[in-house]
Structure formats: C-alpha cells, structure tokens
C-alpha cells in the first residue's frame, strides 16, 4: 500500500494548474507529431530538449512523457484513415483499422484505438508504479560488471532481434558507439576522435546528435522525396462505439495490455513485437471461436483494439527500465534519459531514492495525461486528420528552424550548427541505406555509460578481464546474449521448410 500512498502524493503534486497545462501541451504536441508520418515522438522530444533550460525537471519530464504517450496514440489515427502508419508501432493497427475505415467504420476504429490506448496506458502506468520500486531495490545491489552486461544485452537485443537485417542493425550501433567515443576520455584525459579540434574535446551534445539524426535527417529525406501522389483520406465523424463493439473490444484490450507491458519493460525495446503478437493472438482466437474469423483482413475490430492496446502498454513498460535502471530501450527513452542527465540527475537505481518527488509526480502526470488524451482525442479526431493537408515545405521549414535553434542554443556556438549539418547528413544516409535509427541513438547514449561501468569493473579487478565475470548475474546475462545471437541461427538451420511456411501464413 506504500506505493499507493506515494502515487497519491504524486497526484497531489501533479494537480497544479501549471503541471496540468504542461501535461495538456505535451499530449497535444505528441498527438500532432504522431499523426504526421515521418515525425515521431523521438524527434519532437529532441527538438524540445532546449526547453529544459527554462523549465524545472518535473515540468519538462511531464511534457516529454505527454509527447511520448500522445505520439503513440496519434500514430493510430493515420494508420486507420490513410493506411500510412505514423510510426512503426502502428503498422499492425493499419491492417484492420484501414479496412474498417473503408467499410465506413472509421469512427469505431478510432474509438476502439483511443479507448484501448487509454486502458492500456492506465494499467501500464500503474504497473510501472508497482514494479519500478521493487526493481530499483534489487538493482541497487547490482555491481558494475552486471550493469555492463545488462547494457550489452540491451544493445545486442535491440540490434539483432529487432529489424530485418542484423548487418544494418550493427552498422547503426557502431556508428552510434563511435559518435559516443568522441571527446576527452574521462580517466586518462586523452582526446579521442577530436581531430585536434577544440570544440570536439567536450564530446558532442546529445541534443545535436538527436536533432541532427531525427529532425535534420528526416527533413533532408523528405526534401529528396518532396512531391508524391496524394493519398486518399477517409472522412470520419466523431468516434463512438456501439454495444457490440464494446463487447468485442474488451478482451483484446486486456490481452494486448498483458502482451505489451512486459515487452516494453525488457530491453528488447520497441512496440513492434508485441503489436504483432497481439494481432496474431486475436486472429487465432477469432478463428477458434469461428464467428468473426472471416472478418479478419476485412476490418475486424479485435485487430485494432489488441495491437493498439499492446502499443500503449509497451510505451508504459518502457518507463520501468528507464526509472529503475537508467536504461533506455526506445529512441524516445534515450532522449528522455539525456534530458534527465542535463539536469545533473543521475538516472539509475538510485533515482527512486534521490528524486522521489520527480518519479511519482511524473507517474501521476502520465495517468492524468492519458486521461487528457482520451478526452482530447475522441472529439478531435476529424481535426487531427486535417493536419495531413499541411504542405511539406512549410512543415519541414518549421522543423528545420526549431532544429537549428535547438542546436545553437546548446552553447551559442556556430560550430554546433556545422555539426548539426553533419549529423543531418548521417541521418539522411542511414535512411537511404535502411539502417535503423534505434541502435544508433542507443549506441550514442549507452556507449559512454557502458564505458564508465566497464572501467569501474576493470578497476575493481585491477585490470583483469575475469572481473567482468565476477558476478553470477553477469554470467547469466552473457549466456542470454549468446543465446540471443546464436539461437536464431541454430533454429534457422533446424527448422524444416514446413515450419517456415506455417509462419508465413500466420
């Protein structure tokens, strides 16, 4: 019951007019960027990083968290009305959602997505509140060798398990790790990869990397594909659900939440896997029941409700490793981590004890923001669809303006603008060559943290490599890493062609 008291305290702090306003701004901005394809919460948070200079840590965290939840929700609107997923986690929603819309059930699809997001987000955030303190208590006891191993596991999982191409994933990871290396080495004061430039000696600010890769890169990419045939948008009214829809959605909402939360919480990051699993589950369940099986592929409401709930539950799950371990598992989480660091707060197992007010107010604000999302989005869905008519030149000009402003404001140094262009070029190149962004940005952020832990572990064992294996947990995690790397290869070898065929049809 301790947790509930703390959460109630958080609510008391969060119910100030100012924080409520920030939460509302956050979810509105989040929905805005979520609706527009190509612009996601990670880019929005990166562009807004400079506001951390003016706001205190709780206020900016409330805005950022609102953007994150809002972005997750906004993606579903585009998926349903345009069949163009606003972000990768909405791909599954698009399959059934767009079919529903084509059959004149857009309002119901939007409603089940909004209410499912609300339910999953609320349950997910409550689970975060209950799990995080317990995990943090355990995590304090974890030593440097195990911490290093956990970060390594997270990088390996994100790189090799997600995405179609391991080579591309690792290419992204190593680009990121290299960027993270730039600057002065903390323990030997050696300059690394600075090419004799004084400006690079302090390392590269995460704001510049994030804004360059997300905003600048996307803007250049869009400029290269500026004119495209407009897509058909399906007109919709105010979302609502009939009694039958409520009955059919309830199960998928809860099952989606149950699938999404654990996937969000483990460092295998991302909502793609749980949304996919949720979709498959709902389809199999429908087939077993018989009745609605035929509807799958033609707009079954279960196929929208389940994945959309899984999507938001995993978005909430992401906060568990972030708050308990200081470990980001998504691109947005890694930028949130950078924002926390810029306040001089050390994210990690001690965060719960050092900054209890921040954590509990943040969690309470998430719950409030989630409710605001439902209230705002149900009546405003047709309005959000109108955003899609914004011409790209104007939209991206605005983004570039904020990107340059943000990069310049870090140190008032024109050199940073040149760096921004370089990272914009890298961002364009990784899009061109299909290299995933997530391993890159995790490499930039986790790389230096890993190095610190690696040094600590090696110092303890006075340089002996065996020091890395001195803890039981570390060994278990290394075994997991080997399984994650070798498992798919071995399985692929033993799998008969028949199994492979089954997977395709599923």
């Amino acid at each position, binding site marked *: 019951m301790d947790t509930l008291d703390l959460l109630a305290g958080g609510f008391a702090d969060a119910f100030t007019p100012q924080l409520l306003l920030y939460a509302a701004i956050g979810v509105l901005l989040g929905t805005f960027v979520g609706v527009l394809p190509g612009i996601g919460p990670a880019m929005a948070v990166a562009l807004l990083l400079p506001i951390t200079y003016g706001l205190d840590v709780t206020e900016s965290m409330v805005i950022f968290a609102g953007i994150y939840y809002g972005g997750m929700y906004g993606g579903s609107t585009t998926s349903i009305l*345009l069949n163009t997923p606003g972000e990768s986690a909405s791909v599954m929603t698009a399959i059934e959602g767009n079919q529903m819309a084509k059959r004149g059930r857009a309002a119901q699809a939007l409603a089940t997505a909004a209410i499912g997001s609300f339910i999953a987000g609320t349950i997910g955030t409550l689970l975060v509140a209950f799990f995080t303190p317990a995990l943090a208590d355990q995590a304090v006891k974890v030593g440097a060798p195990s911490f290093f191993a956990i970060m390594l596991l997270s990088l390996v999982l994100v790189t090799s398990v997600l995405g179609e191409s391991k080579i591309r994933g690792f290419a992204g990871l190593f680009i990121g790790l290299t960027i993270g290396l730039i600057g002065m080495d903390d323990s030997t004061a050696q300059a690394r990869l600075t090419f004799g430039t004084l400006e690079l000696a302090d390392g590269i600010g995460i704001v510049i990397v994030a804004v360059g890769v997300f905003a600048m890169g996307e803007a250049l990419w869009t400029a290269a594909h500026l004119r495209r045939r407009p*897509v058909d948008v399906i007109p919709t009214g105010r979302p609502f659900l009939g009694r039958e829809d409520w009955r059919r959605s309830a199960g998928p909402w809860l099952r989606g939440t149950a699938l999404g939360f654990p996937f969000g919480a483990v460092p295998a990051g991302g909502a793609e896997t749980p949304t996919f699993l949720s979709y498959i589950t709902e389809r199999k369940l429908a087939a077993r029941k018989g009745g609605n099986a035929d509807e799958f592929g033609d707009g079954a409401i279960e196929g929208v409700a389940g994945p959309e709930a899984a999507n938001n539950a995993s978005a909430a799950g992401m906060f568990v490793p972030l708050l308990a371990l200081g470990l980001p598992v998504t691109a947005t989480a890694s930028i949130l981590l950078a924002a926390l660091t810029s306040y001089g707060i050390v994210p990690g197992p001690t965060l719960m004890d050092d900054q209890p007010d921040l954590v509990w107010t943040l969690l309470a604000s998430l719950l409030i923001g989630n409710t605001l999302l439902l209230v705002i989005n149900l009546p405003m869905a047709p309005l959000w669809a109108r955003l899609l008519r914004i*011409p790209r030149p104007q939209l991206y000009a605005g983004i570039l303006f904020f990107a340059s402003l943000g990069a310049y404001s870090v140190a008032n140094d024109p050199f940073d603008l040149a760096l921004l262009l370089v990272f914009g070029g890298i961002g364009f190149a990784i899009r061109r060559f299909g290299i995933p962004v997530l391993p890159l940005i995790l490499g930039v952020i986790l790389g230096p943290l890993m190095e610190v832990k690696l040094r600590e572990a090696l110092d303890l064992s006075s340089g002996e490599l065996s020091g890395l294996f001195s803890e039981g947990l570390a060994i278990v995690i290394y075994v997991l890493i080997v399984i994650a790397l070798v498992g798919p290869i071995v399985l692929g070898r033993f799998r008969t062609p028949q199994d492979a065929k089954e997977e395709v049809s599923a």
Partner: protein
Amino acid sequence: MTVLVGYIPDQYGEAALAAGIEEAKRRGTGLLVLNASRGDALVDKRFLGDAQRGDLEQRLADSGVAHEVRQSVGVDPADDLVEAARGADDPVIVIGMRHRSPVGKLVMGSTAQRILLDAPCWVIAVKP
C-alpha cells in the same frame, strides 16, 4: 480535344465542368479535364481519389462528349493548364473563379489570375 477544364472536386470545379461540357457541345469538340496537385502534402482534397475519378468518368460518359481525364502530380495547377493549352490545337480553357481577398491572394496566390494572364488562348471563367 480543344476544351480544357481545370477541375477540382468542389463547387468551383463543378461550375467549370458544367460550362466546359456545354462549350464542348456547342463547338462540337472534345473535352480534356485536368486535375493537378503539387503533391507536396500528404493529403490534397483537390486531387481526385480513385473513387472520385471513377464518378467523374461516369458523368462525362453520360454527357456524351468525347473526353479525357488527365491527372498530374508535382506540377503547379496553373502551369499544367497553360502547358496543356499550348500543346493543343485551337484550345479554350474553362475555369471556376472564387473570391479571394487581397491578403488571401498574397498568401495563397491566385491560380485563376495566373491562368488568365498566361494562357495562349481564350479563357472562360465561370462562377458557381
């Protein structure tokens, strides 16, 4: 094909289309319906979707005039019409006119004005 209609799916486009069909009948020539989008936004409600295009073709077929519908992306609608008129033999352009305030014209520009000034042929401007 000498009557060119600049068509968008709203009342102005409809007015132009109706006048264009009448003009084609009067002249005893064919009708070329142009629908263009700059293609720089994800959604452009002035660009015909597949369903709308099907409707339009049906209505043109019902009118009994020889017709063609041409959609282009990535061009300015005014340039599209003027270019088509330059390429055509003895053309006439039919467009719908809307009211724009001076400020609106400054911000949005005026497709109608550019067609009126640049066209190499007669332009029939109709009001809904």
